[in-house]
């Protein structure tokens, strides 16, 4: 039986985070401005987006500068079906996710053949193609100005109506979807497929020699990552009530990479920490200084140079030192977590 007493320190912190996210719409207004609730909502969406980058880089060893494509496809899938075809909420959301996943599959057929810088380059190219296409086709996509839409209700029966226009409901809806995605991602990473991802990251030729098809494994990872980025894009379109060509731009992918690196690549929740930290930095600093991105740049440089494990790595080593945990590389298959990257350096 698991009880609070035998939780590891990191699990205890996790529990506090869970409580925070579960109660945020009620606890935040007690101590801060209401608009921080929507910042936390945004952090959850960006955290999921950064986690999709992490699935590729942290677990499969592929650095993608193109995750914004699937994020943007998800967002446009929702916005276009609602605005043009008058779809209701659920079909629109499902179309958004499906379009993102299918796009990931088609582009993945080409991208998964490549690794390292060639992979990074082809994903940038995909990103630019889709971006210029969206900017150019202004009649449909709204181009730079974006495509706003009217939010359809999520559920309607008689006089009763549930809609994301109710901000507390919106918060819990997004929390539920993001949490569901993280449960799914956790399951995948702890499954034989997850270990195949890691095997390909660690040593693709060895993985091939023991019977894995590295191309197939990369493609599957790419499609899953596209799916998660698509869900994030759908949520962000619903949250901001519009889609824009800029969602597809490679700088959005770049932000995902930065969140992942600062939070801790190769850890499940590191990307959320990174997204949270840098979003808060942005919100606080941008009030005082328009060039706050310089500070973000310095933070990223410091992390890459001195703490390549990111916030999660710092947190783990701090907890280990504080609680004097003996550090052994446990098997991940046995169920105990193991630091995937860096311990062996």
């Amino acid at each position, binding site marked *: 039986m698991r009880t609070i007493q035998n939780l590891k320190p990191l699990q205890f912190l996790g529990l506090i985070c869970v409580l925070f996210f579960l109660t945020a719409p009620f606890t935040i207004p007690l101590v801060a401005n209401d608009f921080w609730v929507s910042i936390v909502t945004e952090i959850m969406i960006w955290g999921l987006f950064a986690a999709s980058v992490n699935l590729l880089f942290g677990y499969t060893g592929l650095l993608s500068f193109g995750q914004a494509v699937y994020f943007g496809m998800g967002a446009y899938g929702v916005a276009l079906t609602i605005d043009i075809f008058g779809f209701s909420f659920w079909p629109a959301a499902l179309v958004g996710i499906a379009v993102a996943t299918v796009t990931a599959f088609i582009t993945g057929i080409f991208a998964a053949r490549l690794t390292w810088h060639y992979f990074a380059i082809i994903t940038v190219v995909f990103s630019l193609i889709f971006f210029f296409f969206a900017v150019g086709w202004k009649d449909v996509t709204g181009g730079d100005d974006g495509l706003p839409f009217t939010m359809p209700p999520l559920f309607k029966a008689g006089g009763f109506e549930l809609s994301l226009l109710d901000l507390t409901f919106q918060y819990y809806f997004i929390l539920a979807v993001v949490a569901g995605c993280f449960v799914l991602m956790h*399951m*995948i990473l*702890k*499954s*034989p*497929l*997850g*270990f*195949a991802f*890691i*095997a390909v990251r*660690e*040593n693709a*030729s*060895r*993985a*091939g*020699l*023991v*019977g*894995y*098809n*590295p191309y197939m494994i990369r493609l599957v990872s790419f499609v*899953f990552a596209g799916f998660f980025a698509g869900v994030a894009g759908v949520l962000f379109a619903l949250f901001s009530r519009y889609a824009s060509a800029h969602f597809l731009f490679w700088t959005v992918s770049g932000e995902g990479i930065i969140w992942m690196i600062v939070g801790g690549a190769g850890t499940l929740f590191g990307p959320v920490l990174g997204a949270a930290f840098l979003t808060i930095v942005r919100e606080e600093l941008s009030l005082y200084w328009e060039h706050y991105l310089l500070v973000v740049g310095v933070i990223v440089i410091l992390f890459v140079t001195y703490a390549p494990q990111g916030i999660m790595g710092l947190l783990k080593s701090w907890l280990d030192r504080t609680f004097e945990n003996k550090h*052994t*590389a*446990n*098997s*991940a*298959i*046995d*169920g105990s977590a*193991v630091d*995937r*990257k860096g*311990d*062996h350096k």
Partner: protein
Amino acid sequence: MSTPVLQVEGLTKMFGGLTAVDNLHFTLPGGGLHAIIGPNGAGKTTFFNLISGFLRANSGSVIFNGEDIIGRKTHEISRLGISRTLQIKSVFTGLSVYDNVWIAAMGRSRFLNPFKSAASYTDVAANVETILEDMGLSDFTKELAGNLSYGDVALLEIAIALATQPKLLLLDEPVSGMSPNETKHTVDIIRGLSKRLDVILIEHDMEVVFGAADMITVMNQGAIICQGSPEAVSNDPSVQEAYLGTPGEEDEEELRA
């Protein structure tokens, strides 16, 4: 006579102007430990690379248990039952010893269920434990592969190769860089393995080769110059010429030893 395990016909591999493997004919009847020796650059490792799909042959065929495997991808060849180790040891450095072998044991699965926990595959776990035990790696299961000594990495690589349950095992200099004790331990293990599956061994250590192999093939300049029992090979004049004929060859010392 039953069909041979491995039948190689006219295998040729050229790198630019250099013919690394030259119209090679080779038959592995099956059963026992087969060693391939030869001076550096004789084409031994290239031969392995061709069999395992790392390189594409310019011409020729390799029939494994009745199937032509030339042109197949590495993972397809592995799934047919050929497993190999590399001259430069290749393991999953950032993972634990246990996970290394576990991943290899799952490599043949047709479907990697993304919704089933890896920990729930109890039969795979039991298999992994047995292999680690057999290889004498049980004490290191939780150690990162990258932290192992060189000799243990070589043993781990053999464990990985075995976890795929091969019919044919190709070992490329498994004992190079090992201490005499480690070498003895490893050779004993390889001897034991060769009783239940076919093993082809590339090795420079002549003591190991002549002490352990049932059959020896000598390669030089991409071709087989001699094949036979250890006694027959050691008395063959063409072998002595290949090794001793070119002064300054490093293997010269080894042959005399």
